């Protein structure tokens, strides 16, 4: 209702881009890649930033979403065409249907994985939970490397469906959902448990169930990004979901400011676009990243934006946002 006008504007813009811009052009590719980074960083921010849990296996959820979505698209396309009569639809509609199905499958599978990884939070605190997430991420990668049906170490090739509209839509959607969460009852509960678990539980917040919820939601978003990514190039390799990838996402969240969605978005875009523009330094990318990370931790551990968020309201009133966001 309140957002109706803005939503139509966004949809219209994306549609326009879809119809006019070539997704395979170098610039589009870089921007689309940064969309994936944004989705990953924003989703990780829910676990690391809002809930204050330390998760260092996020690439695992990304992988689950990617491989599940790719499998559905690759192995299930004929079935879908037959039972849903897709063959008679125009190409763009059929492709969109397949893509959406893949995204749903990827998100659900990743959400299940998120549930499994989040459950141990019942018994584990701090470093130990981080260790569990690390183990999980690596486990996923090793498993996928060895499933021959999805290509194993050689990689998995599927028919690409590269859609600016859908990638853009899901990116905007995920950022929007995440921002909404921040100023909602559930989001406040997450931040409360981040700041002081005991005090939060005394107020009636079920700590474990909220931690698990954070994992499930975050994983689902990463899975969605994964499924979209799988169709971006049409080629998946287990090594692109390794520990280093998880670290890259953490770097984005940490640099942008743990707890700030805006920070995560900015950092994700900058850290994806910058390496592309500085191609000569590609070899040094990891060294530069890690140097950045170390410096950031030493000088400003709360990241660029700390926990502050960008909002139109605060631009207008130049004061702190009081909770609620009725604007």
């Amino acid at each position, binding site marked *: 209702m309140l957002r109706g006008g803005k939503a139509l504007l966004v949809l219209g813009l994306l549609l326009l881009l879809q119809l006019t811009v070539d997704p395979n052009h170098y610039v589009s590719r870089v921007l689309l890649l940064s969309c994936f980074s944004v989705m990953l960083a924003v989703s990780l921010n829910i676990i690391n930033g809002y809930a204050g849990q*330390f998760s*260092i296996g996020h690439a695992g959820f990304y992988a689950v979403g990617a491989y599940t979505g790719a499998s559905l698209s690759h192995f299930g396309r004929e079935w879908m065409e037959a039972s849903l009569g897709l063959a008679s639809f125009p190409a763009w509609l059929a492709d969109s249907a397949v893509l959406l199905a893949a995204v749903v499958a990827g998100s659900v599978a990743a959400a299940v994985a998120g549930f499994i990884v989040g459950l*141990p939070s019942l*018994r*584990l*605190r*701090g*470093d*130990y939970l*981080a*260790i*569990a997430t*690390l*183990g*999980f991420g*690596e*486990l996923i990668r*090793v*498993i996928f*490397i*060895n499933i021959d049906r999805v290509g194993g170490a050689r990689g998995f090739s599927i028919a690409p469906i590269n859609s600016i509209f859908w990638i853009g839509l899901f990116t905007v959607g995920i950022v929007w959902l995440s921002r909404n969460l921040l100023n909602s009852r559930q989001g406040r509960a997450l931040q409360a448990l981040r700041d002081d678990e005991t005090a939060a539980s005394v107020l009636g917040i079920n700590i474990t169930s909220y931690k698990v919820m954070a994992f499930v939601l975050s994983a689902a978003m990463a899975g969605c990004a994964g499924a979209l990514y799988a169709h971006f190039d049409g080629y998946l390799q287990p090594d692109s979901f390794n*520990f*280093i990838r998880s*670290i890259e996402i*953490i*770097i984005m969240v*940490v640099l942008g400011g743990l707890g700030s969605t805006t920070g995560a978005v900015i950092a994700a875009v900058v850290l994806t676009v910058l390496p592309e523009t500085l191609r000569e330094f590609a*070899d*040094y*990318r*990891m*060294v530069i*990243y*890690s*140097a950045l*990370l*170390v410096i950031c*931790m*030493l000088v400003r*551990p709360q990241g660029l934006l700390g926990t502050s968020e960008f909002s139109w309201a605060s631009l207008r009133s130049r004061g702190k946002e009081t909770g609620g966001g009725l604007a």
Partner: protein
Amino acid sequence: MDQLSQIPQLIVTGMTAGCIYAIVAVGFTIIYNTTGVINFAQGEFVMIGAMVAAVLMAKFSFLVAFPAAVLAGCLVGAVLAGFVLIPLKRAAVLTLIIITIGASIAMQGIAQFLWGETAIPVPPFTGIPGEGFVEDRSFHLLGAVIRAQELWVVAVTALIVIGMTLFFRYTLIGQAMRACETNPAGARLVGISVRRMVVLSFVMAAGLGALAGLTVSPVFYARVNMGTALGLKGFCAAVLGGLGNFSGGIIAGIVLGIVESLTGGLLWSDYKDAVAFVILLAILLIRPEGLLGRKADQK
């Protein structure tokens, strides 16, 4: 029946890998006990030792290469300690862990820049001298072929275990380091410089790691990215044995190496690498403090 006959060989191979995991675990333990930090760069120390030894062996004798490799490791350890020390008192432990993660990636990146990505073969300590590639001696025992270098790995591991036990129990410095673990404020009061102990713990962990690296490199080749897997698995061993528990880490490392080898050889060869993580996850669910750890940390 054919499978059963492979077991001795698998155990031997597993033992070798296990010893390296054990040494890495010891490194983790030393640093964790003094600072509470989980040092994700531990595996890279092994890599540094292996790479420096490999590169130097091509031109110099092992008398130069080996000490140089260990020294290189110690130097890097000292540098890392410096970075961790800066925010140590006021920073959250997780911040420090992120710093070590960043350091490990930086080390790998720099190593890649210096030495490229190819694997470098390293001649074994007591190989049979000859033209070109140096062959290693081997023994037959109970149906397994044991390479001389593998015995060296076990020997070095044993030396490290004995050395560390003696060090921590009987030397003043060793006891000082143990004091830092239990009570940093108290340690300071009696004149122990916690800063120095932190640097020392990193230097020791790094030196040990480098030693492990140069000893195992003739068996597994020296490669710039060997650190990640070793670090992760050594870390699994440390958790399995109980974070902070010295002997736990060693036993767990060897057990992990053997279990991994047996599983890979007898059951699913493809999933051999997954074994360490499955065990890690299992232990975290069942008994997070590890097999021999004390039920402490609820951070």
